[in-house]
């Protein structure tokens, strides 16, 4: 390969002041590796919390929502193009729950994007044990399917999950409920809803999801048990929970399900909007830290090039006198910046990976070795972060190198040579 004379001069200048070059490259290295580390940490934790939320939230939840009267009946009846305005619309009286839930489930199951689907009866209840009462919800589920979707087994503290299927009037309670009501496996608990008669149920196990709010309110029972609690028939289902093969598709699939079924389909992004906001804020904080680091690295490069130009101003004048154009001089100095950037970028990628890897092995485990708690700092190793880091690193060096380079290109040879 033919190396251009500009490149040769740039490389010579860099290697004749090795120490400063190295310091400038270290600045870039630091910026790039911090960028990678921060991004890995951020994506790692975000992914972790996302996965955590899937321990309790399905990708899509289908339920019947109370509706407010709208104009579509009038439109159907009048069949003209006039605009109707409803004055003071009221809530419509609606049947609770989903009509023909198993028909709906069969229909949705035919969609190839759907990985798992299960019905649920949700009941707001009051737990009573002795003289203490506690508000909460009971989820009537098919525990085998539920376990497949949300790994309930991994959250078990004591007891056996399958007992829910063959012990009559059995319930699986959260650890928070057990603590507050001082309950153990095998104890009895009274569960009552507003509508049906209270039922004495047997605690067959205790789980801990790691989410305090869930563990203090939610318990599982068989779906028929929940229907009994509410005094409803066997076709009464309040929610249909759907997991997709690709959870990122949920925001697209949900509206489709809404049009097909006529029920409200809430995807996990809507359900966890606070989580998403937290992600955004965290991203902003980390990105500004990385931005500041890159800025400092940029100043390092700006500084070394300015110094080089100050020291070599006579030589720049000579180069111009013997026929180097302004563009050549810019190229000579910009190349120096770029080589510093590439050098720092490559070392930074290695260093960033090592730091991320090291942190991912750092034990920060909680005391209870239960699924769902955070034992190691979650780190993701995601290729685009590394590419972005190098790109940002080099862009910074180009930006930082451009102004000194332009200054060099404007040196007037006669003024300098005349002395």
């Amino acid at each position, binding site marked *: 390969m033919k190396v251009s004379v500009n490149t040769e001069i740039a490389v010579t200048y860099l290697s004749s002041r090795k120490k400063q070059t190295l310091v400038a490259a270290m600045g870039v290295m630091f910026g790039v590796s911090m960028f990678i580390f921060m991004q890995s940490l951020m994506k790692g934790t975000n992914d972790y919390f996302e996965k955590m939320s899937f321990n309790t939230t399905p990708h899509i939840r289908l339920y019947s929502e109370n509706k407010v009267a709208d104009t579509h009946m009038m439109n159907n009846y009048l069949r003209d193009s006039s605009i109707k305005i409803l004055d003071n619309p009221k809530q419509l009286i609606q049947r609770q729950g989903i009509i023909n839930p198993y028909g709906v489930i069969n229909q949705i199951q035919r969609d190839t994007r759907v990985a798992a689907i299960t019905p649920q009866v949700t009941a707001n209840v009051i737990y009573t044990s002795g003289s203490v009462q506690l508000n909460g919800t009971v989820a009537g589920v098919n525990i085998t399917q539920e376990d497949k979707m949300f790994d309930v087994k991994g959250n078990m503290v004591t007891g056996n999950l399958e007992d829910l299927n063959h012990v009559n009037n059995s319930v699986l309670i959260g650890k928070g409920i057990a603590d507050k009501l001082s309950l153990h496996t095998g104890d009895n608990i009274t569960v009552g809803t507003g509508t049906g008669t209270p039922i004495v149920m047997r605690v067959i196990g205790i789980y801990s999801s790691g989410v305090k709010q869930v563990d203090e309110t939610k318990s599982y029972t068989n779906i028929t048990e929940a229907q009994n609690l509410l005094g409803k028939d066997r076709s009464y289902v309040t929610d249909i929970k759907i997991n997709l093969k690709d959870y990122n598709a949920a925001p697209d699939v949900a509206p489709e399900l809404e049009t097909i079924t006529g029920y409200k389909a809430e995807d996990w992004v809507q359900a966890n909007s606070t989580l998403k906001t937290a992600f955004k804020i965290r991203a902003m904080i980390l990105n500004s830290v990385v931005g500041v680091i890159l800025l400092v690295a940029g100043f390092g490069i700006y500084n070394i090039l300015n110094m080089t130009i100050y020291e070599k101003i006579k030589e720049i004048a000579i180069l111009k006198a013997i026929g180097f*154009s302004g563009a050549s001089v810019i190229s000579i100095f910009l190349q120096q910046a770029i080589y510093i950037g590439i050098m720092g970028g490559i070392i930074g990628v290695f260093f960033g990976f090592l730091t991320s890897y090291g942190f991912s092995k750092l034990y920060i485990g909680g005391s209870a070795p239960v699924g769902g708690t955070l034992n190691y700092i979650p780190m993701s190793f995601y290729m685009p972060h590394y590419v972005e880091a190098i790109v940002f690193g080099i862009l910074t060096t180009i930006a930082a190198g451009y102004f000194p380079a332009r200054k060099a290109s404007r040196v007037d*040879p006669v003024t300098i*040579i005349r002395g």
Partner: protein
Amino acid sequence: MADIALMATGITKYFHDPVTTPVLKNIAIDVAKGEFVSIVGKSGCGKSTLLYVLSTMDRDYEGNLEINGVKATGRSLNDLAQLRNESIGFVFQFHYLLPDFNCLKNVMIPALRLGKLSYKEVESKAYEKLKMFGVEDQALKRADKLSGGQQQRVAIARALINDPAIIMGDEPTGNLDSKNTGIVFDLFQKLTQEFHQTIITVTHDEDFARRSDRIIEMADGEIKSHGRNK
């Protein structure tokens, strides 16, 4: 006068620091191709200033400059850089080499810039030039490790590397002993006579000036004699 290498008319230049004073006053010069011209005059009379104007490095003057029949006045910086690279070799008063490079590289750089020859060809040509001035054994030393006289010879070799039509020197032999001055003079003469290159050099060496084709005498920013009646 058929072949004109350089023609300047009405060159006037002012310095504004500390007060506006004319340094060059309405100077007219023409130099034929293959001519070996010396410029002499008292220190401070404007010789270097004139040479910078003639070499196209200084664009801040009034008047008109033509090089090889092409107008140089008013052309863009890039054009002039290209013109200098290709057609003008310049030896500075204070030899100015690039200290981070070895002598060989210093000589090679203008040719690499021009890009007409391959790297190998440029390298052997540069060696040849260094040999002519007896500094080939210094080729791989850093330029700032050489004595003043050696540096000056390397600087002259650098000015010749692209076989420029015009070679300008600002006291190019100022740092040389009589033996090396003799070598440089003989070489300059050979270049003008055999290769028809043109030489314009400022000198304080009376002997050097007397042996050249023509002496232009300057005083106080003006030309006192064109030396044509030799």
